[in-house]
């Protein structure tokens, strides 16, 4: 019965998580959350502005509740690169409390865990314990009998003053042990974000991966015929919730990129009969500005990890070269200088190197260089055309788009070009962007014809491929950092 459901971030050694079945079952736990032990730390309230406003203002307080039972060996975990990989059966019990938010939070958590394919949330109709007293120890035997390995319980209670208090616990059913527990205070409008934060806590505790759910995606919303497309920048939670439009569609917009440090997006815009320009948009205030002052068209922006610089591609006659702009000093530095098309630059997470595409050798291929342009070296040597390289936030891989034989694939390779792996292939896949934990890649896939693209995500094993809901056709996704990492 001690089914081991090892899930591990790929490439790492598997710690064979073993659920010691008998061990904890029935062990008396202290009643959850003794008031005296709750140390609530208030996090700095984020500014309430424009778009992200209230949600950003969300996280008022969260606290790791110190309730874990003295460390046990037995812990649920998952091994992603194993041939025997199976998603972790987990029961997410309806949160109790305020009906306006509790059900929604349960749904967000359940959908998040299911979407990434690493968890198999169990059908609530199979639950023997229909409701769980949040302050008591669950009846582990009843959860064991439906083979739930993990159990998530929680409640959302309206406090005086209009705030809600949301609490959750993650239990290891077979070890009979609490693995995580946290408490949050926030405005009720932030309930989705709380759901995402709890999802991240579960993901991190079980897989060891960093979070990816408390994030947003900026993308290009597409409507109208392909010959006369209306394109608007839009931002949404990574699961498609809380969608808002950032531009009105009067201009063409493509290639948005999320700042690594702030609520800013760089993108390329173009009005009819005018050259393209790279712009910055603050998605809290709506303020826009053009990046740099260049005589010719600019495209393909990307932020440096410190958020203080942007690299982009500047058209110079028939050639395109990469330039860096310091956003504070406004100084511009030329980085590459070729009689070729150099574009799609992307920084390594430590900021020391830049990967980009260039057709200097014929067709587009991937090159790596120092951030100052030194030591330019080709790293892709496979058959086909390699474009849109994006360095993983973990630093271990470069994602890319590869064209070969009329098919467009999304793949990854190590920064030296070795270990190439195709994750998904089809008629047209494009624009990879990394989740902040470096485990998932979002991209768009277009079946061709008059329709349009849709957003998908795939994990670095290529095992999980899931569509992200959008209201219309969608392209050019850009995944934000964890919102808690933004200013």
């Amino acid at each position, binding site marked *: 019965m001690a089914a081991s459901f090892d899930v591990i971030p790929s490439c790492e050694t598997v710690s064979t998580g073993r659920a010691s079945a008998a061990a904890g079952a029935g062990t008396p736990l202290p009643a959850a959350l003794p008031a005296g032990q709750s140390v609530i730390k208030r996090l700095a309230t984020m500014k309430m502005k424009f778009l992200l406003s209230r949600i950003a203002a969300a996280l008022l307080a969260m606290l790791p509740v110190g309730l874990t039972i003295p460390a046990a060996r037995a812990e649920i975990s998952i091994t992603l690169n194993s041939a025997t990989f199976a998603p972790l059966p987990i029961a997410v019990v309806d949160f109790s409390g305020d009906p306006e938010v509790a059900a929604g939070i349960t749904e967000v958590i359940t959908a998040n865990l299911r979407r990434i394919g690493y968890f198999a949330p169990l059908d609530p109709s199979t639950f023997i314990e229909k409701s769980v007293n949040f302050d008591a120890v669950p009846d582990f035997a009843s959860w064991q009998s439906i083979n739930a390995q993990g159990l998530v319980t929680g409640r959302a209670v309206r406090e005086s003053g209009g705030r809600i208090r949301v609490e959750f616990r993650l239990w290891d059913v077979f070890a009979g042990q609490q693995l995580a527990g946290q408490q949050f205070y926030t405005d009720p409008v932030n309930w989705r974000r709380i759901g995402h934060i709890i999802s991240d806590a579960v993901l991190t505790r079980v897989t060891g991966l960093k979070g990816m759910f408390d994030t947003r995606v900026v993308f290009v919303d597409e409507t109208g015929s392909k*010959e*006369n497309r209306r394109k608007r920048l839009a931002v949404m939670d990574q699961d498609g919730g809380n969608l808002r439009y950032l531009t009105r569609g009067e201009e063409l917009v493509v290639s948005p990129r999320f700042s690594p440090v702030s609520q800013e997006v760089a993108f390329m815009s173009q009005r009819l009969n005018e050259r393209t320009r790279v712009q910055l948009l603050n998605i809290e205030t709506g303020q826009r500005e053009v990046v740099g002052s260049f005589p010719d*068209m600019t*495209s393909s922006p990307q932020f440096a990890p410190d958020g203080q610089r942007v690299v982009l591609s500047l058209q110079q006659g028939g050639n395109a070269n990469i330039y860096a702009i310091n956003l504070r000093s406004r100084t511009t530095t030329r980085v590459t200088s070729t009689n070729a098309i150099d574009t*799609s630059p992307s920084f390594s997470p430590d900021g020391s190197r830049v990967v980009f595409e260039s057709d200097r050798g014929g067709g587009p291929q991937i090159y790596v260089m120092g951030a100052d342009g030194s030591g330019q070296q080709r790293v892709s040597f496979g058959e086909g055309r390699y474009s*849109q390289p994006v360095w993983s936030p973990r630093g271990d891989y470069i994602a890319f788009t590869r064209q070969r034989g009329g098919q467009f694939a999304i793949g990854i390779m190590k920064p030296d070009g070795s270990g190439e792996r195709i994750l998904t292939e089809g008629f047209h896949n494009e*624009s990879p962007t990394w989740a902040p934990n470096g485990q998932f890649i979002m991209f768009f896939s277009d079946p061709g014809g008059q329709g349009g693209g849709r957003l998908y995500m795939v994990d670095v094993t290529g095992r999980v491929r899931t569509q992200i809901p959008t209201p219309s056709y969608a392209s*050019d996704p850009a995944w934000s950092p964890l919102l808690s990492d933004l200013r």
Partner: protein
Amino acid sequence: MFGIRVSAGLKAAAVITATLALGACASNKTDQAGAGGAGGLYGAGASTPGSAQDFVVNVGDRVFFETDSTDLTSTAVATLNKQAVWLQRYPHYTFLIEGHADERGTREYNYALGARRAQTVYDYLVSRGVTSNRIRVVSYGKERPVAVCNDISCWSQNRRAVTVLDRPAGS
């Protein structure tokens, strides 16, 4: 001639570029000023010599490129030679060269590819005596196709550079 929808018959056209040069395969959407190259200003009416319509119909406003190529084909050279003559005969026109790529490429690269195509046409027209200060260039990448479908007959129509005359001042 314009406004014809891309049909099955088109796909059979053996020499696509030649056909296109005659305008027979113009887009299924030609009323976007500028974007497709054949703007609304070319609307109904006789193709008076020296008119924008004359340029589109009798000279040819666009040239086509092979996949991933920015080289001018012999057909393209012939068209551009006629454009150069016409543009020098009617020197009051300023114009925009739009470079386009087909949809079988990635977004950022195709912007640069479209720019390179526009630049190729610019360089050629200037080499044939057209004054450079009359010309502006722009790339639309793969963002403004004139034909949409899933086969090469469509894609080949989208790999183009279009010479779009500005509306004469005062008109």
